[in-house]
Structure formats: structure tokens, C-alpha cells
């Protein structure tokens, strides 16, 4: 009887473990930043920053000046430019942005435009100061409508807050050539 009881305990433990393994969220989905949603006015308050999405634009070609040289970048798809106004809250921070596409794919900021003026990649936000910045992405056009911008502190996304802005409901103004000014 004792043996039967032991076997039943082991079987129950194995079944419970199997059940938990199949129902508990996996590591990747568990260790994600906390979701903070921006309000109706497009203003999101993260733990260390407040951000407002002031506009979206798309462009086939982006140009700007760097150290007196003209730089022009084109894309095999389209550039999406998110214009932001960001205020630091408690400490000096750098932020990173991703675009969650309409298909669920994640697009990081384009590394080919890191040296563009006012780019989020090189910006640092100080407490109490508000700065304008842009995040530039490269993606197929059908990822824009239905997609959304996500903003989070750089390199510390896990266990911190990420601000989710509202989904893009309409295609943004499209430019054949967009000039980025400082």
C-alpha cells in the first residue's frame, strides 16, 4: 500500500509539473518590461520619462547634413519617422524605441540613420528638460497602419516600464524626399 501511495505521489507530481510547464508563460514572455499605455492625447508617463508622440511621417529617401557633408539614405521599403517630445523625470537617461508592426514583428531604429540630427539614438534626456527628437525605422508600408510605437529606457527594459503609444489608425503623410534639420 505504501508503494502504491508513493507511486501515486510521483505520478501526481509529474502531472502537476507537466501541467505547469505547459501553462506557465515562458521566460521570454515573463521577463518583459511592464506595459504603460499612453493616454488619449498621446502622452505616456514612464518611470523615468514622459513622452509625447507629436507626429508620424513616412519617406522614401531621407537626407541631412553631417559635418558639412550631404548624406542621403534610401530604403528597400519605406522609412517611418516618429516625432517625439520627451522630458526626463528623475535621472539622466537614454531611451530606445521599437515599432511593433501590424503583423506583430518588431522593428528597431534604423542603424543607418544613427548620425541624423535629433535622432533618439544619440539623445540624452535630463530631468525637468523637454527635448524634441525623432526615431527612424525602416519597414514595409503595410506594417505602419495597425502598428504602434514603444519607448523604453535603453539597456534596462527588463523589469522597467515601456510606454506603448496608440496604434496608427491612418497612413502618415508620405514624402518622396524628407530633409532632416537640426
Amino acid at each position, binding site marked *: 500500500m505504501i508503494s502504491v501511495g508513493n507511486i501515486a505521489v510521483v505520478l501526481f507530481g509529474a502531472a502537476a509539473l507537466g501541467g505547469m510547464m505547459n501553462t506557465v508563460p515562458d521566460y521570454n514572455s515573463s521577463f518583459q518590461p511592464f506595459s504603460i499605455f499612453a493616454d488619449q492625447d498621446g502622452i505616456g508617463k514612464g518611470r523615468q520619462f514622459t513622452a509625447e508622440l507629436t507626429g508620424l511621417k513616412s519617406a522614401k529617401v531621407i537626407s541631412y547634413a553631417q559635418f558639412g557633408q550631404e548624406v542621403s539614405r534610401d530604403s*528597400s521599403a519605406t522609412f517611418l519617422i516618429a516625432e517625439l517630445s520627451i522630458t526626463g523625470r528623475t535621472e539622466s537617461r537614454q531611451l530606445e524605441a521599437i515599432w511593433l508592426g501590424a503583423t506583430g514583428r518588431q522593428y528597431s531604429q534604423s542603424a*543607418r540613420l544613427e548620425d541624423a540630427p535629433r535622432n533618439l539614438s544619440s539623445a540624452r534626456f535630463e530631468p525637468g528638460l523637454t527635448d524634441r527628437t525623432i526615431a527612424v525605422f525602416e*519597414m514595409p508600408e503595410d506594417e505602419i497602419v495597425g502598428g504602434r510605437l514603444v519607448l523604453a529606457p535603453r539597456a534596462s527594459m527588463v523589469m522597467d516600464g515601456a510606454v506603448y503609444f496608440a496604434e496608427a489608425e491612418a497612413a502618415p503623410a508620405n514624402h518622396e524626399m524628407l530633409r532632416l534639420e537640426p
Partner: protein
Amino acid sequence: MVDGGPGIRFYRMMAQSLKSAVGRIRIRIIAAIGLVAAIVLTWWMKVEDARIPDAPPPIAFGQPVSVGRSVFIPEKLALANDENGERKLVLTGLIENVTGSTQVAVFGFPEMLPVLSSGDTEFPAPRVNLVRDDDFLKQLEPRIREAIAIIWDVPPDWQAQDVLIAFSAQQFKLNDNLYSKSSWLQFHPTGRLTARPEQGA
């Protein structure tokens, strides 16, 4: 007690003997399970080995080859001179990110670029440029197929002949054994392209 029948000692002995037999059978069953588990594990390891072929399959131009996070389709291999008159071997083709997010480690991490060999000549690691603006390939976005050029510097003593280009990819594991999170693990060869370079510009 019945005269001539087995005594209490006999029953005790029988019970002990039975207990001992059950114990021995249990040990043998456990040993048999261990033996079967070892045989099944060995068999499965052989199956796993067979799933990754020793020699990577030969590929041809226009045929896709996995480089892990992306798929590359080689289109042309040419011998060209750069603006300084130095010879370069240029493999052009299309590459597409097959994951759900932007990839910086297009050829894996740590990066393992295609390896070119020809006779005894050693070629240095290549660089990878976008064809459309000749800028470095810094990242690859999902669903955007890019034309790239993989460029090798050619040693001065090398004579144009057939070359072998070996591609490799990291193995993807959805749930790894440490954290049960998705990981890119060891590299394995995925294809080899044998071609004679065309004379380019």
C-alpha cells in the same frame, strides 16, 4: 498449532524470503529500466547526429542557403578591381531576415561570415555591404529583402580559379536547457558553393 504442519518459524522464513525476492526483482526492474533508457538515449543521439549531415550540401547560384537568422540567395561571383586597382572577389546575392525582429547579428553571434577557400590560398574575412548605397550592412529588418555584396580582398599571388565558399548557421532552440528561453546555439555548416569567378569591372 497442528501437529506435523509448518511452524511459525517456517512462515516467518517464507515471508522474509518473499520480501527478499521482491527486493531483488525491484532492483532488477530498475536496472532493466536504466539499461533501456541508455539504449534509447544512444539511439536518439545517433538520430540527432544524422539530422545534421557531416558534409554540408552543395548549393548553386539562385539556391537559398540558411545563415541562421536570415536566408541568403547567391547570385553572382565576380573578380573586380576597386578604385585603387586592388583585386576583390565579390559575391552578390539577396538576403532576407527570417525572424520576427530586426537583426544586428545577421551572420550569427559571434559573427561567422562565409569562408572562402581556393587551393592553399588563405583569404581574410570579408566585409558585407548593401548594394544600393555601398554602405556596411549594419542590420536587417524583417520582410525586407536586401541585395548585398560580400567582398574578399584577394592575395596578390592568387590566380583566378575555382573557389569554395562555405556557409554556416547557428542552431535555434526555442527553449534552452538553462533558462528555458529561446537561444541561438552552436554553428553548423549549411551549404558550400563551388564556382569560378567571372571577370567583373
